[in-house]
């Protein structure tokens, strides 16, 4: 296989990842190969073979500067194009099947990075789309689980519930930030 063949494979695979990302899908190497095969990429005798591509693809996708790798909660290695599907959004999509993990990791990231607690109603909207009763159930379940003992809540004077991670934020500070966020629409 020539360097040109490898470059062609790499770009075709990257394009398949971009297209999946534009449809808000994370893909693994097998899915990329499937997409390439469906496009007839391996049909010509003078092009790179399927098995050869299967061996090369993980390295090519991992090294591509416009693509990102995500180690899925299921153990799969997934790929996406951050230009079309941001790292933050990709992580949310990956965790959507596990509400507790989904909420906890989002709460932790917000407490750590911004820093801020997040309103519980955040999880009602897209892309989370959890019904209020599921959110309440998840908060209760996290309180019982040793894996989520850092997840806690504060309630503002207006009755809004905010969630934060005690790994990254003191309760008093979470309360202050929650009250401040509420005040933005009450005393701008």
């Amino acid at each position, binding site marked *: 296989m020539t360097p040109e063949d490898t470059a062609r494979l790499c770009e075709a695979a990257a394009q398949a990842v971009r297209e999946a990302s534009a449809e808000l899908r994370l893909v693994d190497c097998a899915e990329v190969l499937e997409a390439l095969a469906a496009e007839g990429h391996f049909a010509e005798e003078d092009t790179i073979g399927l098995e050869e591509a299967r061996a090369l693809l993980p390295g090519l996708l991992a090294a591509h500067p416009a693509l990102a790798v995500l180690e899925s909660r299921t153990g799969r290695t997934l790929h996406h194009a951050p230009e079309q599907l*941001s790292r933050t959004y990709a992580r949310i999509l990956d965790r959507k099947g596990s509400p507790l993990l989904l909420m906890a990791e989002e709460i932790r990231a917000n407490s750590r990075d911004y820093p801020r607690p*997040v309103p519980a109603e955040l999880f009602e909207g897209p892309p989370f789309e959890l019904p209020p009763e599921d959110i309440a159930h998840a908060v209760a379940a996290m309180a019982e689980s040793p894996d989520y003992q850092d997840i806690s809540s504060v309630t503002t004077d207006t009755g809004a519930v905010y969630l934060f991670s005690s790994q990254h934020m003191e309760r008093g500070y979470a309360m202050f930030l929650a009250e401040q966020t509420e005040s933005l629409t009450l005393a701008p």
Partner: protein
Amino acid sequence: MTATPGGFAGRVLRVDLSTGKFSTQDTVERYGDVLGGTGLGYQVLWEEVPQGTGPFDAANKLVFATGVLAGTSVPCSGRTAITAIYPSCWPKALVGSGHMGGQFAAKLKYAGYDAIIVEGRAERPVWLFVRDGHVELRDASHLWGSGIRRATLEISQEMGADCCVAAIGQAGEKLAPLATVVNSLSHSAGGVGGVMGSKNLKAIGVQGSGCVRIAGDKGQWERLVKFHLSILGANNQHVVPAFPSPESEYYSPGSRWVGEPGKRWGAARPPVEITGSIHSMSRIAYRTNSAAYFLGEQAWKHTVRGNGCTSCPIRCHTTLKVPAMATKYGLNEIAQGTCIALNFGRFFFPGLPGGPKGQAALEACMIGMNMADDMGIWSNYGQLQRDFIKLANDGVLQAKLGSAEYSSIPWDQWRAGDPAFLLDLIPRIGERRGELGNVLSQGSGGPFDHWGVPESAWEADRATTYWKMGHPKHHANEDDGQCGVIINTQYNRDAQCHSHTNFVRNGLPVHEQKRLSGELWGSPDSVDAPGHYTRMNPYKARRAQWALIRKELHDCLGLCNWMGPWVASPLKERGYRGDNSLESRFYSLATGRSLDREGLDLAGTRVFTLHRALTIRDMATADMRGAHDHVPQWVYEDPKGAQPFTQGTIRMDRADMALAMDMFYESMGWDKATGAPTRETYGRLGLDAVGQALAEKGLVPGAEK
């Protein structure tokens, strides 16, 4: 019409209402050094309005001034500053400006003028007709006593649909210090309506078929406009969406970028669904929905569209349609507004059934927008509502109002959170009816003067958010620690500065903000995480100075400081950088006079210092530190007793704030002991004559009389 220089329309119109005479001056020759806008207003007041002039004296002047960039294609360039001796400044009226967006600024320039200086007092009510260099005073007797809507409609019918009318309502006619001038339905300038009323000037109608000439290369201009569009966020330059998006690494639930694909303007016919890329330059107007930001999800179904100013894609004045308004209250079912004006009605209630985002809140907002923008009432950044609640809750109203008046107020409706209460209260204020309406319409100074309520009671009560001189805080320590406090000490009204808060609330994580801060102001330590403040340092002083000067520059150039400066952006590929030189790049291209960032900032500093000089002259003291740059008691307290510089408090430390003021004065070139500009500083800024005049009065530190 003579050839105009680039950017400027070229002429300033003077209207003497006492004599009915008009004259013009060359803008650049006469006012070029102060850029336009507030700078032009300050210069007129400095040169022509004697110390001791009262706000409603015929000798006070009312200066409607746009700027170089108004009427061009620069985004967010629809602003007009209205400067005068400002009536709600307590206990003594001093220089101040109201600022309005809408279409007035562009129309005025297309009519051939950069500014209108209104002098004297007409014998009877008049309105000013301005069309393509033709000016008349016309009788307004038939409009006097009517609201802004009727005045606007009648004048529009007389002039033609493409005019823009800036008018006062009943509050302005009755010389209420809390009166607005309103154009384009909802675009209001606070505090100056009464000055207009004192001159018997009901309205100004402007209409123009001209244009604004751009002196520089047109291709370069178009590219810069497109670049500016590319770095815009949503309202207040929030650069990340409020919702997680596949197109953004960051989001912030507190962001005003609420326009998410899938949301609908439900009251539009047919309804409009938001689709496509959130970063598309042709969809910027969908990002902001002020009603949804303040009133939550329910507002989407009532949204007709976003409204806004000339050349501004942000459209922060959301238009709402609520049919219940007609059936329940007999009011127009459509209203529009943003921020405090949108919340005018809701903020009068300590509680509302369904909470602050329920149906009653929505109806209260609709009543408030409809009535306040028609009667021309200003909320003083919500202080009117906070004053009313405190006066009622503290028993002051019951104690001070006569029993007949007190019992005539439908308190049951107020306690129940019934929006119909506003149908009684708002006209009292707008018409200055009874003791309650008369006192409230004066601003916070009203209860202080009239009922002997001590100002210290307001200063000590954090819930009032009262700051000083009759006005509240406007993005102070709750947003930005020492920078916010410094900024709030400087003006004679609420600070109206957004340069700092638009950065700290932009929605980026703190590590990104600190990285950008390091590039912009020399150190990441110039910015703190909210409510986790560190001690004062010189970089914070530099940032406070930058924020104030940019605010003043925007008010001079016709730019919107509610949106700018644009030093952060949504663009990941730019490392979320905006452009700190945007204003000077536009100024240079528009005028053909090349001025770099430092040069334009120097001009902004000149204007800001002229404001300081006017304040010093009219207060007759150079001791700004002791007599003017006041910080209220509540800033130094915490309801839970938290110490300054601990996480979760906005409590500031007195010694640290004293150091902050030292550093700020020093960076401005002002005397540290008094906070007054030195003679050298006046000279460096081209204000020698100002320095000389103040020195002769003993108002320059260290200068001989």
